[in-house]
């Protein structure tokens, strides 16, 4: 018995060490964003919110934030309908074809984003299109769709299809069943998937880097600033994006868990 207590204790300590490893670097970023000195060096000289104030006065940051939000919202608006329809389409009759289709829709998730990015860039160049936020949007839908399909598909696996059948038996048509039975039942999964597609778009620097035109998104701006060196302003900007992604994803988790 003492032995098993020791194992439990050792595992517990290991767990908290890993949590420390995961959070310390992020904590350092946030900490330095409050530092009064220009250079990010310990010990802290004093605490200030000046860098955040500076950030909000910076037009570049405002524009980039606006662009990022627009692209992320539009990513959701495209990826969610396509992904939900796809998941509902493969839901019934789970055969070999459904498995292949599911793997096909999930494929962009495992494909390195660099490859998605350079592939789109090359195709866009070949066609002769101009790079813009629209091309970024197309790239971001590719990372959104797999999440939507997988989340909705998982929900449909434990789905009570008898409700749909009952509606059909009572004479409801395909679209009526979809709008009045299937989609309302899928609502939590759809909301959760939307929020995840949103953060995935909002946080992406890689696909954006290859498909963006003259505009900036927040990660692209941050990346550009990082190349010139780490300033407290960069730390503040990183802390802001950190906060936005955590809040969005937290909402997603809560919605997905509460409605399980």
């Amino acid at each position, binding site marked *: 018995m003492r032995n098993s207590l020791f194992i439990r204790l050792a595992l517990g300590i290991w767990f908290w060490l890993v949590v420390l490893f995961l959070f310390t670097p*992020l904590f350092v*970023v946030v900490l330095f964003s409050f530092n009064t000195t220009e250079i990010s060096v310990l010990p802290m000289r004093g605490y200030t919110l000046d860098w955040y104030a500076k950030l909000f006065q910076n037009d570049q940051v405002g524009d980039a934030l606006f662009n990022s939000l627009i692209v992320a919202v539009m990513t959701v608006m495209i990826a969610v309908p396509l992904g939900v329809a796809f998941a509902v389409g493969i839901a019934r009759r789970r055969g070999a074809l459904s498995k292949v289709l599911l793997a096909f829709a999930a494929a962009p998730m495992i494909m390195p984003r660099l490859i998605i990015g350079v592939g789109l860039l090359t195709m866009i160049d070949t066609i002769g299109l101009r790079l813009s936020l629209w091309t970024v949007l197309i790239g971001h839908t590719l990372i959104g769709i797999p999440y939507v*399909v997988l989340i909705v598909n998982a929900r449909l696996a434990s789905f009570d299809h008898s409700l749909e059948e009952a509606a059909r038996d009572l004479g409801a048509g395909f679209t009526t069943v979809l709008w009045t039975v299937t989609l309302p039942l899928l609502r939590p999964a759809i909301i959760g998937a939307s929020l995840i597609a949103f953060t995935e778009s909002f946080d992406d620097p890689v696909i954006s880097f290859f498909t963006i035109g003259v505009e900036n998104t927040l990660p692209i701006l941050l990346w550009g600033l990082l190349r010139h060196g780490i300033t407290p302003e960069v730390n503040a900007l990183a802390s802001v994006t950190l906060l936005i992604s955590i809040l969005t994803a937290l909402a997603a988790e809560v919605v997905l868990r509460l409605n399980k």
Partner: protein
Amino acid sequence: MNTGRERLILLTPGTFWLMVFFLAPLFVLFIYSFWVVENYRIVVDPGLRNYTKIISGEIYYGVAIRTIRIALVVTVLSLLISYPVAYYLARKVRRFRFTLLMLIIMPLWISFLVRTFAWALVLGRNGVINQALQGIGLTDEPLEWLLYSEFAVTIALIHIYMPFMVLPIYAVLERFDGTLLEAARDMGASKLRAFLTVTLPLSMPGVIAGTIFVFVPAIGAYVTPELIGGTDGMMFGNLIAQQFGATFEYPFGSALTVAMIAFVATIISIGLRYGRLGRT
């Protein structure tokens, strides 16, 4: 209950979208990989020159080896770090299990640009670690190899992708049927032996899934080596990105990309086959 026609209506838009914007670009890259650039213009003169260039060029070879080495080290260390974490969460805690799991998942939500650059603050010349080491008198001068090195890339990639290893292992261990373990114990197996002969083999599907989820993105890493790798930590992804940036070598870059896809596809198919064997 969905009829064939209805399924078609539901599946067509998504399939079309992925074919046009995901598959078609990959196909375009494949075609480009057989062309060449002369005088800053792409010349359609199909051949295998780009591929022979990759095989004969020592730089590409060296970077490829380093990329595989980094990805392997990242995967193995992630596995060693993650298994006890997943085991603890799935088998040793009941209350607060969800909250504790959240602590591991939460970093995944944060932009990996931010997670990478955080390591620059920790590992830099005047970073937290160097200051601590000098502060307690272990070193007189800052350790230069901490940042802009293969070491920096490795540790940051572990930090970024490790949760992907915890999750599938946790999922398998959580659903795990405890009666098998009890049977093994009843038959006189020691705790360690029961773990090695029952728990570990049964968790293999999770281990294999986690290995793919960590190894594949590590092979394709680009932002992390770009930001904190320096020349010593340059990876295959940086090599590819260069061809599509200033040097405008799309065809050669395409060949490098095709090589990476082929490698990744091989790894995944081996993993899937192995994973299926593990289940039966």
